[in-house]
């Protein structure tokens, strides 16, 4: 499996460290125990398209959000996690 890093180009998956599902969002500190349990432990674990976090440890050290089919390892999109986070930050102006 090879991942196209937006900063470094196409690299072997062995350069990256995996951190799991990118769709779980850290809840507010005052959230209920159930919400925190779901965040820490529960996963959709789909057999198909999966949005996930990868860290380019042996490269540029960027965190990436990779869209991948976990049955075929086909990769649809790779985005800098920073850009994903900025895009979903609420507009406060």
């Amino acid at each position, binding site marked *: *499996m090879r991942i196209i890093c937006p900063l470094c180009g196409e690299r*072997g*998956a*062995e350069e990256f460290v*995996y*951190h*799991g*599902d990118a769709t779980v969002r850290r809840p507010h500190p005052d959230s209920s*125990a*159930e919400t925190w*349990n*779901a965040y*820490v*432990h*529960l*996963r*959709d*674990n*789909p*057999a198909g398209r*999966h949005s*996930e976090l990868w860290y380019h440890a042996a490269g540029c050290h960027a965190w990436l959000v990779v869209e991948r089919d*976990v*049955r*075929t*390892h086909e990769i649809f999109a790779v985005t800098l996690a920073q850009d994903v986070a900025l895009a979903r930050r609420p507009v406060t102006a």
Partner: protein
Amino acid sequence: MAKTRYSIVQVLAQAFRGQRGWAPVWRDAEPKAQYDVIIVGGGGHGLATAWYLASQHGITNVAVVEKGYLGSGNVGRNTTIIRSNYLLPGNVPFYEHSLKLWEGLEQDINYNAMVSQRGVLNLCHSDAQRDAYARRGNAMRLHGVDAELLDRDAVRRMYPFFDYDSARFPIVGGLLQPRGGSVRHDAVAWGYARAADQRGVDLIQNCEVTGIRVEGGRAVGVETGRGFIGAGKIGLACAGNSSRVAAMAGLRLPIESHVLQAFVSEGLKPFFDGVVTYGAGHFYVSQSDKGGLVFGGDIDGYNSYAQRGNLPVVEDVCESGMALMPGMGRLRVLRQWGGIMDMSMDGSPIIDRTPVDGLYLNAGWCYGGFKATPASGWCFAHLIARDEPHEVAKALRLDRFAQGYPIDERGAGAQPNLH
């Protein structure tokens, strides 16, 4: 059908008849409209559950539904190792119960599973690791499990061909569990299937579950490729795909699916007596009765439902093997394959009721499911039959994550690919 009891007399009689008298080992059952219990998943754990439901609890109106053929999943994809060298209280009694069931399995199910207690040896490579193994060995012995701490010379007498003087990872000793060993894994599935079938359990192959029907908070049956099948109780034993199947009943599990690879070398004359794990990397090896070295290492480390692995882990496994046993470099790898693991959030399994009445869950086996097969079936059958957890499996709860009682052997936290 005739219930043939296997024995030496049978084998000799068949030898004189040109082996033409053997009957099919189980019926190819058609699904009935309703069962007392349906087990989803015709692998080792599901078949063992069906057998113990019938033999220990007298519940024989049971169906095992399997999407492929019996034993097509992880029961035939592992490295066949059995052991009970665990550390934590929630785990040791369970795995020791399993090892005791292995010791009597062949007589129980009248099937030769080639259970071979050839000893499992965990190597250590530093003083700190030896201390950790001494602690683990003591924990095992306090639970009545056999464990021996070996020094370097004792290990060398058993396996003279290891690299003892590696500058980076010298072998300083090991923790031996003499009662550990290996079992022919396919025979476990076949043996349990045959035994369950003879008690009247319907084994329904090529019958994929596509939905779980829940009415008024209670599971009442499964939708399958061969129509709806009603059930009083439903047990899920489909590790690898537990999240997918549980989602049909609206459940979200503390599990990720990951791929684990295993390897077999070309056949060699017998030279490797037991099962050995390398302590400085993740590598475990034994020699099969056909002569091939059977070995494996880490999971690939990312979510996967593809039953095949990637090359970086192949390299990692072979490097670990070479570091332990440089002579291995002369060998060719004959076969390599992958299986899909239910990687749970603490590295330990789940045998429990679910929030849906009548729906029971057996999941999260990580890459330790094979050795657990008999106890998993035993405890899951107990849970389904009596609606209460078995004594040795009562820590393997689904709600232990929410309650703050994970069983984290490795101390890695809620990160499945680190367990």
